[in-house]
């Protein structure tokens, strides 16, 4: 199996996101006839044989890295990740509709509105994992903010006074609510996407088109049912 990964012209390599998107991704792959049984087991392996293609699993934010470099031919990850890493060139082929979520600006319940805060103090301190998206959002509106980059549990930052608010991804909003935060502004909405390496998109076009076509069809029929 490990030889297959290095073989030029071997099975197509699909980067599969671990974490929140994993379940829906594997369900979708099942529906288009890709064998995900191995990947569903409790194995510590990172690489699985999906029959017609190889499944390589990784953090969603690593998918653009692997796909843009050609280490994976195709991949699945969130639009939020693609926007945050827009300098990594990949083909974005299909909106898979999985893992819908929103990127929002949130502050503590009961705080004055961010715009009012900005008016009084001139600037805000915002904690985020998504530096590029936040930067573009505030720059576009000409709002002066200081971005504090944190790696995890961003909700903590405003509670203990590290920041005035956060820019983060929310799916249900439960984590925000449980940490006394509320959505103030919506920045963008995101879903999972099928992406392809620029060279694989040309040289392995039959296989890439076939996979994209089957996934597009599966998404369409799921939308109708």
């Amino acid at each position, binding site marked *: 199996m490990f030889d297959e990964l290095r073989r*030029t012209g071997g099975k197509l390599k699909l980067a599969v996101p671990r974490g929140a998107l994993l379940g829906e991704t594997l369900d979708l792959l099942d529906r288009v006839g890709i064998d995900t049984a191995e990947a569903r087991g409790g194995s510590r392996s990172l690489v699985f044989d999906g029959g017609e293609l190889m499944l390589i699993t990784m953090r969603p934010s690593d998918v653009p890295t692997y796909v*843009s470099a050609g*280490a994976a031919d195709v991949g699945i990850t969130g639009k939020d990740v693609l926007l945050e890493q827009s*300098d990594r060139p990949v083909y*974005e082929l*299909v909106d898979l509709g999985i893992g819908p979520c929103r990127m929002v600006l949130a502050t503590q319940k009961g705080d004055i509105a961010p715009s009012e805060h900005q008016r009084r103090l001139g600037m805000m301190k915002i904690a985020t994992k998504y530096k590029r998206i936040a930067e573009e959002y505030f720059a576009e509106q000409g709002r002066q903010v200081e971005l504090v980059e944190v790696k995890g549990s961003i909700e903590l930052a405003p509670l203990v006074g590290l920041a005035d608010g956060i820019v983060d991804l929310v799916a249900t909003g439960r984590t925000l609510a449980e940490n006394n935060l509320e959505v103030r502004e919506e920045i963008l909405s995101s879903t999972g996407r099928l992406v392809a390496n620029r*060279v694989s998109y*040309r040289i392995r*076009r039959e296989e890439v088109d076939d996979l994209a076509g089957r996934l597009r069809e599966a998404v369409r029929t799921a939308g109708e049912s």
Partner: protein
Amino acid sequence: MRELRAIEAALIGTFEQGGFREVRTPTLEYADALELGDGGSSGSAYRFFDERGELLALRTDMTIPIARLVADRFRDVEPPHRLSYVANAYRAVTPQRGELREFGQAGIELIGVAGPEGTAEVVELLDRSLTAVGLTDAVIGLGEDGLWTALLQDAGAGPETIDRSSELLVAHDLVGVERVLVESDELDAGAISQATDLIQLRGGGEVLEKARGLGGEGFADALASLTRNFEEISARGLERKVLIDLGMLREIGYYSGATIEVYDETVGDIIGGGGRYDDLMNRFGLDLPAAGFTLYVERIHKAQLERGVAAGSGGDSVR
């Protein structure tokens, strides 16, 4: 270094055989001259002042410096001009990505031969160059610069929709392209699905068949231009080396007509590019059609290592 030299020697030799003479231009150019050629795209990442306060810049490719050189020094020489180069160029990078600020380019400029004939000569020499460095499996992508704009104009899209969707197409965001067309409210559903299907068409001559008769007059013209290029390339026996790509849109601002990208399966990035730029010389006051290609020397080297071939070996193993 010996391996890089071997690549450069093999390419220069191939260029010479094709009648292309090597030229050299300064690493530093006046920023104005580079921007004149680039037509307002981002320009050089590295700029500084000379002793009189003039703005200088490091070149981002060799096409514009050679256009300037020809306009300066070949004005009274009978065209066509067949020029080649091996030189370093400079581009901005994202730190820690293993990208090079300074990288090697080897390529040619064919100035004064218009249309399919010129384009096919460029593609033929590109194919020979790839063979000379042992990359016989490399694929030459062939696009047509005006195709997307014509398709949208025919379908009734406004300038803003064309600009926004073109930006997304350059960034390869096909989902975003579709969204922009839907949100613009200028195209009916049939035209949108036709447009998004067309930009995903890539392959051999059958692609031209599939696209024939679609779109309006502007699209038909652009497709006819692409078809003539492909026919001329096929007449030289190279139809199997070329991949027609209706969705290719390159970001550099001087293309008109044919665009070229070079792929090798062992390297995740394009290993070369080029095309036609019939308006470029005009910006330097000389009305001549032009076309050319460049190969990225370090990426050629990487492909050779992955494939176990050496320059000049014509595909034989290194060992």
